[in-house]
């Protein structure tokens, strides 16, 4: 409880603001208010469950992308890692229990992250180029493993990942919350987490402070890979299948969510809460339109406009401020 209180103390709120989280928080609050207005039934158990199962995998993907962006890179292969983990998990679950399938899948996510991170950190290749290559390579691997949807996810597993924890609280949100708290602890309350933010801000400076920046980058990529694979497991659970194309949409959507969350693409900044709320907003637009009776094709347009306006408004505001200062 004290940790919660500390989170909402002035220090915590100030940090949220400095990490740029104001925008996604406001965006989501507004959006959700509108959503409830259009469709009060969202607050029923069934709809809460469906909605959260829909957006939780994107939230994981957004967090994974955020970690890579914080260390100064970008991950083009994130969708491919999602598909690979999704497919691997589904295959493993045919014959093995979750107790084995889950750790192995997380290991696969970590291995993908290791591949990317090693090339970026130790060969000093640009992240965008490395992950472009791994997009192809991991994609090929995924389709070799499984070329059409299938796998062995059981209904019990569905309940465990995508059911209800207690009435009105979907299990998927619970797992997301648990993971986010752990990630928050890792990024804000351990020295490693400080290194992750530092390396995105000034990697040479970090070396000069005596810290191994290469190892930090490598571990950040591995952490990102593990995060994606958790999302993939959640996705497999909620859809009851493994699908080699399941991760495709998550590439662009994760980047959009990270942008909406106000994460600086130059590195060094990013708020977990912001990323999650941004993912929730983007993920629910289609749903929202359905209940509002609007052609769901509008969701792409609206998502783009939300993204542009939320990211552009701070830029415009600072421009107006600068103009005003000059004419004083």
């Amino acid at each position, binding site marked *: 409880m004290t940790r919660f209180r500390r989170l909402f103390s002035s220090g915590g709120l100030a940090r949220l603001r400095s990490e740029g989280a104001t925008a996604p928080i406001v965006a989501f609050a507004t959006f959700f208010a509108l959503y409830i207005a259009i469709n009060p039934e969202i607050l029923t158990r069934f709809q809460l469950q469906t909605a959260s199962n829909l957006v939780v995998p994107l939230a994981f993907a957004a967090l994974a992308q955020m970690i890579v962006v914080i260390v100064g890179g970008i991950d083009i292969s994130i969708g491919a890692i999602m598909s690979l983990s999704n497919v691997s998990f589904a295959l493993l679950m045919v014959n093995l229990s979750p107790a084995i399938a889950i750790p192995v899948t997380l290991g696969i996510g970590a291995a993908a992250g290791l591949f990317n991170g090693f090339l970026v950190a130790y060969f000093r290749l640009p992240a965008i*180029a490395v992950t472009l290559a791994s997009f*192809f*390579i991991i994609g090929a691997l995924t389709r070799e493993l499984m070329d059409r949807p299938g796998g062995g996810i059981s209904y019990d597993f569905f309940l465990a990942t995508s059911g209800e924890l207690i009435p009105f609280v979907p299990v998927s949100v619970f797992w997301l919350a648990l993971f986010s708290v752990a990630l928050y602890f890792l990024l804000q309350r351990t020295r490693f987490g400080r290194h992750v933010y530092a390396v995105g801000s000034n990697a040479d400076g970090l070396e000069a402070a005596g810290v191994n920046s290469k190892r930090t980058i490598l571990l950040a990529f591995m952490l990102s890979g593990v995060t994606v694979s958790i999302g993939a497991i959640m996705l497999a659970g909620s859809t009851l299948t493994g699908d080699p194309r399941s991760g495709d949409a998550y590439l662009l959507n994760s980047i959009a969510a990270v942008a909406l969350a106000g994460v600086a693409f130059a590195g060094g900044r990013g708020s977990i809460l912001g990323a999650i709320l941004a993912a929730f907003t983007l993920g629910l637009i289609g749903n929202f339109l359905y209940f509002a009776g609007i*052609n769901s094709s509008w969701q792409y347009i609206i998502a783009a406009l939300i*993204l542009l306006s939320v990211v552009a408004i701070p830029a415009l505001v600072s421009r107006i401020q600068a103009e005003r200062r000059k004419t004083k």
Partner: protein
Amino acid sequence: MNSLRVTISKTPRAAWPFVAFLGLFFIGGLIRPGLMSIESLLGTAAFAMILAVASYGQTVAIVQGGIDLSVANTIAFTALSFLTLTRSLGVGLALLVTLALGAMVGAVNGLIITKLNLTPIVTTIAMNGFLFGIILLLFRSSELATIPEAVSAVTSGRIEFLGTSFPAALLLGLILMVGLQLLISYSGWGRQLIVTGTSAEVARYAGISVDRTRIMGWALTGFLNAIAAIVIVGFYSQASPTMGASYLLGSVAAVVVGGASIFGGSGSFVATVGGAFVLGQVATLVSVANLGSNIQQLIYGVIVLGVVALYGRKKKA
């Protein structure tokens, strides 16, 4: 041996993908002698040229230090618009309007990037999504089956050459390549674009209008994407909302394999064609050896990695 080293260092970087292409071609010939024919060479070249044309816009975007992740739906949007407009406006006018649409899409990207200071990645992703929504709302693909004669002729019509024939698209792509290369190498704007891609600050302090150069570059990117759309429509005789999907990262791959720096400041249209040729020849080899499309993708990834490792290391300040 020294003269060999000198020759290697004097070869322009853009030539290397073609060397690799020829190398792969000969390897193909070793695996299956039937492949060592002009027909097969031209066939691969034509197919690769489509990817190259779809990568011209991306080339401009990357050379100026950005990246275009709206290629996919700009192609789809302009292609579908073109087919819709030919019915009411006729081919010629429809063509002009389509190209203008493409340029407009690009210009909007450019305006957002320069005036609102948004990164190209975010801007073009947003535009990509936006266009996808527009496509779904505006077009019903069932009605768009007829491809105008003129377009088919200019792209998939065959031209006689050395006892065999090749699709006109190959020649079209080559002409475009030459024209664009001249533009970027010998025009004031082209050189300014290259410097802007190297460093916007350097350009600014040399009196170059960075914003104007950039916006023009993005408009050109959109324009070239529209051209690519029409070429694809003519060559494959079809159009659909997802027709551009494979060109999103495929165009980036072609530009990177051609040796351009992903950060900007270097790259050429000749090199992009070379990159597309390498990827195209890989596809041919893989299909001939019956290895499956997964192996092809795997090799694509390895090649991108290899080229980046050769040319793309981040330099320590």
